[in-house]
Every structure is written in structure tokens, then in C-alpha cells.
């Protein structure tokens, strides 16, 4: 139970660089009214980001190529079906975790 001063400096540095991109838009856009096309552009961000974050987990970068992660792909199917049918965040997460645990147990 101790803190290495070197680790603490790294944590503080990391705190600053994670806070900046989170806070800057809230400070700038508080005073600035954005034109309509920019607001429309921003309205596409949620769909884009969530697709990106799912894809980030699906893709595996090897030395010579980019392939799909088979285990993730197998776990994605039951998770996707649960998301479509239940429309429930918690149920989807539970099915996702259980699917992944089963996939890793069997393969």
C-alpha cells in the first residue's frame, strides 16, 4: 500500500491529458453557437463512435494483416440478438459476458 512518486507524476500527467479533451468542448461551446451543418455533423457522432468501439474489439492487427477476432465474433452474435430483442442494456451486457466466458471455455 504505497505510492511511488514517479507513478504519481505519471498519473497526474495522465489526468491532465484525459481531462483536456473532455472539458474543452464544454467550455468553448458554452459561449459559441454552432452553425446548423456542424450540429448535424455532431449528431452523427454517437452512431459512428459506437460502431468504432465495437469494431475496435473485433479487429486484430497482426504483423502482416488485419483479421477478425474469432472469439469476439462468436460472442457478438448472441449479444447482438439480445440487444435487438430485449432493447435492454443490462440484459445485453450480461449475455455478452456469459457468451464470452463460454466461448473462452470451449475454444
Amino acid at each position, binding site marked *: 500500500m504505497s505510492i511511488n512518486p514517479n507513478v*504519481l507524476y505519471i498519473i497526474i500527467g495522465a489526468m491532465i491529458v484525459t481531462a483536456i479533451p473532455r472539458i474543452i468542448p464544454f467550455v468553448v461551446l*458554452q459561449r459559441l453557437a454552432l452553425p446548423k451543418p456542424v450540429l448535424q*455533423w455532431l449528431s452523427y*457522432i454517437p452512431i459512428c*463512435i459506437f460502431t468504432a468501439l*465495437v469494431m475496435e474489439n473485433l*479487429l486484430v492487427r497482426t504483423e502482416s494483416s488485419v483479421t477478425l477476432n474469432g472469439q469476439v465474433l462468436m*460472442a457478438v452474435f448472441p449479444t447482438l440478438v439480445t440487444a435487438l430483442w430485449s432493447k435492454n442494456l443490462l440484459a445485453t451486457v450480461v449475455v455478452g459476458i456469459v457468451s464470452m466466458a463460454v466461448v*473462452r471455455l470451449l475454444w
Partner: protein
Amino acid sequence: MSIASELSGTKPDSLSFLHGVKDCIPTLLGYVCIGFAAGIVGASSGVSTMEIAFMSALVYAGASQFIMCSMLAAASPPSVIILTTFIVNARHLLLSASLAPYFSKYSLWKNIGIGALLTDESFGVASDKLAKGGQVSDRWMNGLNITAYLAWIASCVAGGVLGNWISRPEAFGLDFALPAMFLALLISQLQSVQTSKLKHRLLLVLCMAVLMYLLSWWVPSHISVIVATMITATIGVLTDK
């Protein structure tokens, strides 16, 4: 901010602090699983429980904490660790910019407070509510953010403490909590789109997937996320009728 004054307030209940806390509950399992995994990974990387607690409270970013722990274990230079953390979290610039216009009427300090605790998931819950025609408020967002923040710190510390007994959190599928949540949030976004616009949005999803794949050949995935999102959102504006 007292809960009693929130309850007796005249504002609609769906905008209260307490309602924000309630709306955070479905995402808590995701935070707890990943926080737990982050704590275990931290402990196995030789990061002390106190350092894990500081990291989760100050940095408060899942993917970054995993990477920080592995880089600390590998004794990477501090400047490289901090730069990597920045790159991994730069996408928050897009998330914050997307959400900030809805909070512009509140004070500067309230905006800073909301931005400081924004995560992929709290952004997801807020944009989900907006996509379904709901409204957001400063108090609701704080309820959502603060609940997530406390759950994150608690689960990271718990993972750090238990890290001595569990060495492989992946075996329990815990690391899949986040992708599963992002998938659910994506589907929810698509389900709230008008039928006439669904085809357009699905094409954007396809465009994102292809771009993510192609960009992954050249740049790290955290850069792909930002670049592909900016390109696809631009295509979205240009092709929307």
C-alpha cells in the same frame, strides 16, 4: 445539492439528479466488470492498490488505465505513457463536442464539471435519451456521472485488492462487458431513428466498419476511431436529404 430539494422541485422528474442516478443503473454492471478487471490487471502489473485508487479517481478512463498499467509494468518512459493516454482518450473531444450544445445554458463551472466526468457510457446514456426525444439537464447529467464515477473507483479498488487471487479476468468474460454495452447503445441509437432515415444510418454504420478495417492496416486503433468517425460524420452530412 440535496436529494430532498430535488424531489420537491418543480422540474420534471426525468431531469432530476435522482433520475440521473437511476438511469445510470443499467450501465453499472459494465463499469463494475471493467473496473474490476482493470484493478486485477493493475495488481498483476505490480501497481499498488493505492496507486490504482489514485489512477481510477484522477485519470478515470478504462482503456487508458489498462494501457497505463501494462506500460508501467514495462517501465516505459513517463512521457510515452502520458502521450499514449492522451491519444487513447482524444475521442472524448468528439463526445464532448456532441453533447456540449445541450448544456450551453448552464454556467461555466457546471459545464466543466459535466465534461470532466464524461465517459463513453454516460455519453451513451445521454445521447440515447436525446435520440428518443428526451431532454437532459445539468442535475440529471451529474446524477449519471457521479454514480458512474463512484462505482468505477470502488470496483477498480476491489479488483486491485482481489487481484492477488484472480489472475485472469478474461476467463470470466469480464472484458467483454464494454463491447457488449457499446453494441447495445449502437442498436438503441438505430432503433430510435425514424424508419425513413434508417437506411441512411445503416449505410453510415457500414461505412464506419469498412473504414475502421482499412485504417487499422496503417494506424493504431485509437487513431482509427477518431479519423473514421470524422470522415463518416462528414459523409453523413453530405448524403442526408
